[in-house]
């Protein structure tokens, strides 16, 4: 009799987990896919990454507290999944990536951003197509791409980004600043080749 109750409880808790999954996690599928696609730059890898993340989230659903920020929890799993599995598969970090991140950690911010992006105007960016901006974003080292997506596309706070990326909040600020400086440089170059302005 006791065993029967135990079995029923476990099955009930599985059903409950499915309900939590549908209610808390499914609304973030678009954001997760978008993040995965920008990280992997490959549709098949992005699909696999989202599926793996969902299955992992379901497996560890007991460590999620309903009512807390599900999106940040999922993004953290997705980011870890990407670093542990997909990043290794595709390639190691580029030299540029190491340099930028090292400088970012040591706080050498001053020499990075041109004094004034006179060549890039707000109107130019407004005229650009989504594909053009996406291409510039995709050309950034992955750590910079990641922080811009989290902040500008997904609107996470600095504190949430620090938790998702496992870095101090000061590093979030400096990395974000450097990422945006590099993105603007890419957009300036791009706008010149495409004859904007």
């Amino acid at each position, binding site marked *: 009799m006791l065993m029967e109750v135990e079995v029923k409880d476990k099955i009930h808790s599985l059903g409950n987990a499915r309900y939590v999954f549908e209610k808390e996690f499914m609304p973030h*599928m678009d954001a997760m896919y978008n993040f995965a696609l920008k990280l992997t730059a490959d549709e098949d890898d992005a699909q696999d990454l989202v599926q793996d993340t969902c299955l992992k989230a379901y497996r560890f659903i007991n460590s999620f507290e309903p009512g807390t920020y599900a999106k940040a929890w999922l993004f953290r799993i997705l980011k870890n999944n990407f670093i542990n599995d997909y990043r290794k598969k595709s390639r190691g970090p580029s030299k540029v990536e190491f340099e930028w991140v090292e400088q970012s950690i040591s706080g050498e911010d001053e020499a990075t951003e041109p004094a004034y992006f006179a060549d890039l105007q707000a109107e130019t*960016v407004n005229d650009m197509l989504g594909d053009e901006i996406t291409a510039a974003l995709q050309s950034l080292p992955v750590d910079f791409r990641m922080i811009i997506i989290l902040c*500008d596309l997904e609107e996470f706070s600095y504190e949430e980004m620090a938790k998702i990326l496992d870095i101090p909040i000061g590093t979030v600020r400096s990395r974000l600043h450097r990422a945006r400086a590099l993105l603007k440089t890419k957009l300036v170059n791009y706008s010149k080749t495409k004859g904007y302005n």
Partner: protein
Amino acid sequence: MKTSCEHHQDCMQLIQKILDGEASVAEKEYFIANKDQCLPCQKGYELELSLKTNLKSKCQLSCPEQIIHKIRLKLFLLLILISILIPLFC
């Protein structure tokens, strides 16, 4: 109006903080009070704002329905499998 800004790095960091919703009230007030007197800061603000809004509006994609179906199917099968296995191991 100033056409060059001697604190441009700091101003750009402040502008980004404001647009990211991370600046304090005092920082926002300081920027609003000084923005109209500095062309590079004005242009910097417009550029950062356009970057942020264009990234948000032009670089978003929807998750293909087939992935959502696949995930639901996998979870459903997992649930059935576990429901069958639990009584065997309890």
